[in-house]
């Protein structure tokens, strides 16, 4: 309070929204979380696989800053731009990918006081729309890189995108049908009044998670980047720090999806609530954040259990079972919405 005393009152909303976008749950948190989640993925897989995982970089924390060491190593490598690539898309698209992976988090409220920072009643629509921009850039990257494996990776991304986007939009529609609003703050309030969305419509939650695994390329849906088939899919030609960026993008994407999942199905900041910037946003925000991180941990752990799925079967599953389940979730939503 004492610091805020010296700041002109009209600047406060700006500072608050800036804090929201840049510090928590925005950019800085995302970068720190990327460190944690990549470390967790490696460490959890290592535990299953009877080995240590990251260990020697910062022994006390169990290799938590391994990613930093990796990034330093990447930054000293030569950045190779092969002949024949479309130069501008090749150079700039990883940046766009990163930006569009971060953007959805801005539209997802992490506390009840969010409407003061970003007054909009269409946050669900905005957040889900921005999560769907990334695949388009991925396809462009695959074409721009002038590599056959990149090209095939981009084609795979295109096929899978279409087959899993329809169920995704149906799930968003069923969430709309369930809560009868597109405002995520109101959605959480409805869940606070009844029960979390995962109990109201478990089928929608399952389809949502399936689509998230697909969109972020987690195992068993790492079909686009399949290393034994396509080396690294659309990103094959990237080297040095650019490789580090594109490797991190799926994890950041995963964070956006997980935040949305926590808000839609896990009741967001329930049981905490409050008002003001700290009491109504930061402290409840930690609850939302922890829920999202738990979802992320669950999804990255799948790597230790499953091998890679096959493209044609994944497309078939997307157009059959996942789609059927999405329609079922619509029906459940209509029914439950009638009850509550």
């Amino acid at each position: 309070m004492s610091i805020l005393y010296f700041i002109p009152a009209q600047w406060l909303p700006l500072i608050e929204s800036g804090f929201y976008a840049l510090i928590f749950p925005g950019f800085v948190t995302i970068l720190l979380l990327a460190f944690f989640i990549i470390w967790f993925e490696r460490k959890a897989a290592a535990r299953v696989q009877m080995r240590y995982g990251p260990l020697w970089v910062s022994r006390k924390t169990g290799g938590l800053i391994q990613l930093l060491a990796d990034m330093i190593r990447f930054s000293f490598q030569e950045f190779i731009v092969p002949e024949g690539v479309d130069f501008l898309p090749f150079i700039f698209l990883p940046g766009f990918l990163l930006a569009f992976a971060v953007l959805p988090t801005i539209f997802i409220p992490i506390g009840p006081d969010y409407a003061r920072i970003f007054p909009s009643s269409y946050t669900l629509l905005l957040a889900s729309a921005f999560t769907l921009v990334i695949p388009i850039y991925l396809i462009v990257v695959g074409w721009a890189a002038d590599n056959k494996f990149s090209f095939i990776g981009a084609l795979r991304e295109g096929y899978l995108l279409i087959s899993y986007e329809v169920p995704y939009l149906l799930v968003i529609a069923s969430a709309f049908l369930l809560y009868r609003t597109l405002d995520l703050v109101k959605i959480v309030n409805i869940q606070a009044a009844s029960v979390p969305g995962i109990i109201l419509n478990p089928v929608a939650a399952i389809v949502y998670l399936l689509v998230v695994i697909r969109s972020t390329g987690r195992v068993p849906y790492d079909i686009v980047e399949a290393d034994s088939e396509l080396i690294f899919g659309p990103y094959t030609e990237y080297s040095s720090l650019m490789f580090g960026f594109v490797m991190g993008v799926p994890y950041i994407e995963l964070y956006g999806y997980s935040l949305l999942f926590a808000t839609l199905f896990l009741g967001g900041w329930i049981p905490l609530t409050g008002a003001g910037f700290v009491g109504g946003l930061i402290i409840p925000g930690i609850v939302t954040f922890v829920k999202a991180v738990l979802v992320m941990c669950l999804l990255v752990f799948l790597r230790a259990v499953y091998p890679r799925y096959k493209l044609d079967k994944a497309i078939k599953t997307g157009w059959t079972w996942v789609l059927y389940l999405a329609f079922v979730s619509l029906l459940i939503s209509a029914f439950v919405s009638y009850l509550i």
Partner: protein
Amino acid sequence: MSNITTAPFTYESLSQLTMKEGVLELQVGPAHAGSGHMRILVWVEGDTVVKVDPDIGFVHRGVEKLSEDRLYVKAIPIVERPNLVDTVNANLGYIIALEKLLGLEAPPRAQYIRVITAEISRIISHLYGIAIYGIFMGSSTVFMWALADREPFIDIMEELTGARLTYSHIIPGGVRWDLPKDFGERLEVALKYLEGRVSDYEKIWMNNPVVRARAEGVGILSGAKATELGVVGPNLRASGVKCDVRKCAPYSVYSDFDFDVPTFKEGDSYARLLIRVEEIKQSISILRQALKNIPEGKIIYEDYYKRMTPLMKSIYDEKGRVKFTSLLTSLSPPKGQSFSRVEGGRGEIFFYLISDGTKNPYRFRVVTPSFRNLPYFTHVMPGHKLADVPVIYGSIDYFPPEADRR
């Protein structure tokens, strides 16, 4: 025979195929996560593979010619090199051919020790195959598990021979070291551990729905066609052909053992995975029988023992170590030729030796199982999806250095 395309590889046929609209040529390897030490030229039309051409020879070193320059005993380490995870069987095959030339036979205890090490080597080889299959299908867990589960057996072999992979343990007329005192107990512990692990593999790998979805019905080769193409080993048996050199042309003391030759009639990638697990179970049974029935006695041919100096004999009696006499190091078999067939981890290994009476082999020939399993690339992969290429490649347990006779 008529339905198999056996047209030779020509540059013209390649270029015609490349010119065809909509066909993409992919060079998988030699620096690719899914190729190994080779290049696989894959032509895809859409997502369907229309032609595959394995381009081998990247790690060819010429084991045959290298061996022809050396003394018979000094060729042993070279013979082992092509297949680093299954060295004992290669060593055994070479020695059997050499012993046929020399006209001698190793004493029974040495034969039993040979069988024990050969079966341990087969287990190591099969585990390695499962590991590579795992990483080709994108499961790092099975890769790490199977590689780590080789470790107890490698440790046992290290205690016996002093080396982890290239043992050079089998010599003309016997073996170099007798079994250590607690060998039986240590091996039993390792076998119990492996039996427990096999059930873990069944849970996470063989019964994994994703594995079944990807491997079942993929890369089918019928028994008749497999025989026609001349593939060998577990891959042949996975196609339903009951052919195992240990049974059909027994060598060493394999006729003393009671074991099954598991076969599967499906002939797909999944059967080729299961057959390796079944063979591991059979190897465990053979090892238990060998430990139970191993006779006492010498581990080296009687005549060679007699020619040892008193110091060598005292070392042999105390430590069970065979020192190389001058006769052993400079063998010169009589003029003639001989061959041997042994069942290695990946299939039948064939050795052929011609002696002209000098101290070096006149001609030495080895046919390795991986080379004979190459038709899987050219005849089985076309018609499948691109994602099936690593699945079939992993399932046949193909090892490029072995095929190239590195």
